[in-house]
């Protein structure tokens, strides 16, 4: 390498020998703006920027029955997105965190095309679904301003609000393990400053108004909100989108046709399938002695109950892993009054506890005496019934968690068939496999050849066929002319997720149809087949549940291309 001596001929200001490079590097690291350009700032009562936003915020606080609301002048919104960046900077959000977005609607004809950019954030709904769904009461609607605030330190990071909100307003921060969202810059409004987005809009398209909540209710009843946006009747959003222009009937969001996989929520997938397996196995197992001609003794029941309980505990563990802040999971009981998540947590907690009591009661004669033993363990069947009831109620809660989001693809009928279908199929398969294995271990008669075994196999085959058929019927929507949610799901499953889809059906058909059918035709089979069938079915249901989330179309405001 050549070291140019020319660069070493200079002296720095102190007169000591120093290379030009060193001097320039030193100079480069010296910040000079303050020294060279010290500024005199007028001390003023109001922020200087107030001159631009003074007319964009209300002078008065809302009266009872009123609240603050955003108003967007669509004719003035031209898609510069300064509101998004201004909100980010003025609120000091994390890298890549945004509370406001700008979408695009387009339509019209070739002769008269239209496009409309739409700025959107939290709508500070009259009936906020985020608040209703929150299991830990981390949301509150300000009684005076109506602003829907999120209590960051209360949040456990379950992200249910991100599913409950139809408008994608709460944003989950993986790094922080909590959700955060727009609070209409309440602290600013409280001192007469405009929210960041209002301050930042060069076209003065966003303002805050005081509205009558009745007005918002009436608008939501009439379905009047914004073309391409989720229906307002669920949460009664208060943002008012105004335009003097007529909106063509064929107006669609720019991202209307984009169908891409969403979040897979793996731990929820595991939690759901395992709880359903546990409840199913427990309940079917209970029926065993009566309906299936006593395939096993008390010992068998213990095995079955223990199996179910172990799964339930594993499922609860998986659910906790899903939380951003699992250490605060215990707060989940707070929302019992409104939140299906709280109810689900409590139900499965009770299922585990009553199940334990039932299992202990089965072996109570082998346990040492302790106070209230008779009271606790005397009536095993009571605990069994209770466990079955809360377990099934827990599955119902799981169904309602998704049904409550009001997303049509998660509506109670469909989610119910899926979740209870899983409960039934995995329950039968588990009981069949456990019984067959127990029988083999005890060198009893082969269970799969027995009448009870054959009945279980037949039942499994029918339920599996029905569930798979229902799932497969989705693909008929690929022929829909309209881009319905069903078509979207079918597109994602048949394109981006086609491998997962294929494995789901391979596993389901092999485990739930081929294996039972072979055993039935052969008049029996090795217990290994039943175990294999169970494992295949668990795999299939896990994949089905993965796609339940992964292929679900997001509910949000009209989006831009992405």
């Amino acid at each position, binding site marked *: *390498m*050549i070291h*140019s001596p*020319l*660069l070493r001929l200079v002296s720095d200001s102190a007169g000591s020998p120093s290379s*030009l*490079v060193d001097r*320039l590097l030193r100079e*480069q690291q010296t*910040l*000079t*703006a*303050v020294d*060279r*350009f010290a*500024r005199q*700032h*007028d001390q003023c009562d109001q*922020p200087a*920027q*107030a*001159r*631009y936003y003074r007319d964009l915020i209300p002078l008065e606080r809302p009266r009872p029955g009123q609240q603050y609301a955003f108003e967007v002048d669509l004719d*003035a919104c*031209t*898609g*510069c*997105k*300064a509101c998004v*960046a*201004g909100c980010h*900077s*003025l*609120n*000091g959000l994390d890298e*890549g965190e*945004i509370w406001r977005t700008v979408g695009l609607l*387009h*339509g*019209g004809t*070739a002769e008269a*095309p239209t*496009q409309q950019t739409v700025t959107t954030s939290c709508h500070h709904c009259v009936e906020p679904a985020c608040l209703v769904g929150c299991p830990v009461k981390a949301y509150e609607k300000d009684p005076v301003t109506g602003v829907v605030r999120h209590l*960051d*330190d*209360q949040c456990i990071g379950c992200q249910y609000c991100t599913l409950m909100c139809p408008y994608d307003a709460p944003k989950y921060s993986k790094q*922080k393990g909590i959700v955060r969202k727009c609070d209409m810059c309440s*602290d600013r409004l409280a001192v007469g400053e405009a929210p960041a987005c209002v*301050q*930042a809009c*060069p*076209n003065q398209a966003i303002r805050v108004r005081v509205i009558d909540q009745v007005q918002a209710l009436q608008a939501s009843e009439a379905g009047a909100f914004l073309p391409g946006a989720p229906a307002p009747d669920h949460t009664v959003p208060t943002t008012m989108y105004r335009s003097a222009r007529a909106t063509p009937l064929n107006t669609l969001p720019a991202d209307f046709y984009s169908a891409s996989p969403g979040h897979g929520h793996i731990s929820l997938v595991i939690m759901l399938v395992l709880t359903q397996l546990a409840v199913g196995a427990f309940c079917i197992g209970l029926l065993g002695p009566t309906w299936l001609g006593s395939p096993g003794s008390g010992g068998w029941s213990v095995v079955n109950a223990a199996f179910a309980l172990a799964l339930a505990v594993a499922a609860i563990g998986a659910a906790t892993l899903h939380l951003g802040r699992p250490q605060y999971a*215990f707060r989940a009981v707070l929302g019992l009054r409104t939140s299906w998540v709280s109810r689900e947590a409590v139900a499965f907690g009770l299922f585990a506890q009553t199940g334990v009591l039932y299992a202990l009661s089965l072996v109570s004669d082998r346990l040492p005496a302790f106070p209230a033993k008779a009271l606790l363990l005397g009536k095993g069947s009571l605990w069994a019934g209770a466990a079955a009831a809360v377990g099934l109620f827990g599955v119902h809660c799981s169904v309602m968690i998704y049904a409550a989001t009001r997303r049509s693809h998660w509506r109670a009928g469909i989610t119910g068939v899926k979740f209870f279908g899983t409960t039934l199929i995995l329950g039968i398969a588990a009981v069949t496999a456990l019984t067959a294995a127990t029988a083999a271990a005890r060198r009893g008669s082969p269970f799969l050849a027995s009448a009870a075994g054959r009945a279980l196999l037949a039942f499994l085959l029918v339920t599996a066929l029905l569930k798979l058929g229902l799932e497969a019927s989705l693909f008929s929507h*690929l*022929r829909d002319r309209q881009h319905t949610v069903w078509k979207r799901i079918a*597109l994602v499953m048949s*394109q981006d997720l086609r491998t997962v889809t294929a494995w789901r059906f391979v596993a389901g058909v092999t485990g739930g149809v081929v294996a039972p059918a072979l055993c039935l035709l052969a008049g029996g089979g090795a217990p290994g087949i039943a175990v294999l069938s169970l494992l295949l079915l668990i795999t299939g249901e896990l994949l089905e549940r993965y796609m339940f989330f992964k292929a679900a179309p997001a509910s949000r405001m009209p989006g*831009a*291309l*992405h």
Partner: protein
Amino acid sequence: MTDDGPIGRARGLLRQALLQRSGPLTRGLLLAPGAFGLGKVPARAQPDQTTTLTCGFCSTGCGLNVHLQRGEAVNLTPATDHPVNLGMACPKGWEALAPLGAHDRATTPLLRDAHGKLVPVTWDAAVGEMVTRFKAIQVRHGKESLAFISTGQIPTEEMAFLGALAKFGMGLRDGDGNTRQCMATTAVAYKQSFGFDAPPFTYQDFEQSDVIVLVGSNLCIAHPIMWERICRNRNDPTIVVVDPRKTETAMAATEHVPLRPKSDLALFHGLCHLFIQRGWIDRAFVDAHTSGFEALRAGVADFPLEAVSEATGLTVEAIERLAAVIHGGKRVSFWWTMGVNQSHEGVRLAQSIINLALLTHNIGRPGTGANSITGQCNAMGSRLFSNTTNLLGGHDFANPEHRTKVARILGIDEDAIPRQASASYDQILEKILAGQIRGLWIIATNPAHSWINQTFAREVLQRLEFLVVQDMYHSTETAALASLVLPAAGWGEKEGTFINSERRFGVLKKVARAPGQALADFHIFRLVAEAWGCGAMFRDWTSPEAVFQILKALSGGQPCDFTGIGDYEAIDRAGGIQWPLPAGVALEATERRLLEDGVFFHADGKARLVFEAPRPLPEPTSPEYPLTLLTGRGSSSQWHTQTRTGKSPVLRLLYPGELYVEISREDARALGISPNERVAVTSRRATVEARAFVTNTVRPGEIFLPMHHEEVNGLTLAAFDPYSRQPSYKACAVKVRRLREQFA
């Protein structure tokens, strides 16, 4: 019940554990009064001082109020009092600090080793190697075998240093800038029509017009803050957008004129003809202040309404309506951007707009003007001081008096000044191809992404014996081809001045520390000058502000004379100062327009009316390539090749990650393309894949691709305006097909 007993404490703990209304997470979003006239700001970024910088993205020249803690930038807000942006900024401005912290900043010089890998070296070694290699090339192939490609993104003082160092110190003849890609057309048009490259307007004209005609300009997303100024117009103006696409701006306008791509010259000639025919011109003004009227009248006579309708695809009624709107306006302003500049006949097109403004005397009055909206933050600085096409200060290399003047002021030998202007960007590439240029120095631009017909450009750059790329990032497409990468400090890490679209000087300040060993371009030029052995020539060029004083002296007597601007402090205090401001003239208004006296810069004081008939498109559509490809800005959050805007996580969320192509419903149906499907776009030069955005905002027969994606310029055709040598990015012939069969 007491709260201090153990039970009370336990109860308190339980309550806190169950319901925690505040805590560290809540405090993370705490706001605090910002002082300094700011409202509430994030508490952790509460400033102890603020200072205003001119933004470093586009030419609007917004003032950004940077919040400082111990002299270092921690946040920014648009400057409330700044005369340009009136307290607003686009997302790029808001995020201006984010790209400085990118992980791919060049932090040390990188030299390509024997294995072809870029390895870190010291500055001494880097500059030594550069000088040795460049000098060796000059010894073998002559002084002119080196060239440089400059930029509109660095301060004026740095451009001037580069131009002077390269041409006067190192003996180079050819150097050009990326401004060739954005403003060359306008510069030539103004020079020919007005006698000097002088955009005559001030932003107040946006507020004072009653008719605003935007030609080839998607102002709402390309220059959102200029659109803000239109929003401040209280005259309920008629806003006309002349653009093939129904852009955001076309939507927001009151009239949209969706003409056929590149039929604009016919339209304006037709309007000109109509105005002359109907006597809608200010004949007294034309006679007193212009020349060439008769030739223009004769020329445009070939553009009767029917012919124009035929050429543009507009109905006769639509053209008449447009004419009536312009005629009906008392203060009509015409504005254009890249839709005009990036054309195979852009100079004549810009002049056809200028002609119309001159004929109707919509010039030199409030709310009027034939106004070009510049692209880059310092394209205007480049036009005066890059020392490429013009000799420093808007002088002429071919003019001996100008050479004498410049030599005298710089204290250099007159013979060191070349007697002719540089070859243009495209000609430099041709010379590389021909082996006449063997070494190239590229500063703050990214031709491997941005140059038209990119594949060719990359091949050409690879032929160089030694390619020096000076940039903030080591990751640009061009740096990947470099023999040597010099790490540069960026906006906010150095001082200097920019000149915005309305001729306003604005100051850059040092509010952030450059990473590692990165140096201001200014410092790098000093190092190279010393190492080259011409340091003595630049002994007075000690700091940007010292150079600013030299540039002032160079401007003396020119139309851009700014000898009356004191120093950086004065510019800062005034919120920017527009040229001209000759010495001895007091600065009376923050907004000033040119040509109010009707005296133009030609020797006779008259403007020239220039006419030339339209030329056919270089690459018209054909049965094989039936669609016209339009390119342009994708969103307000993207800047050119995205070396910076791609580094802000917020900006990245505001534009599509995947390349999309806008295609009409009609064409999509004919080609069997369903919305959101992946398609292939093919020109005679390349094929790119994109997702189809089926929309009515583009018309049948046309498609649109955003320019920010690297692959797009693989498609474009290297055609140039003959006078400005500016590439014609806006029209080439392509075809589109489906990539794969799918369901439904």
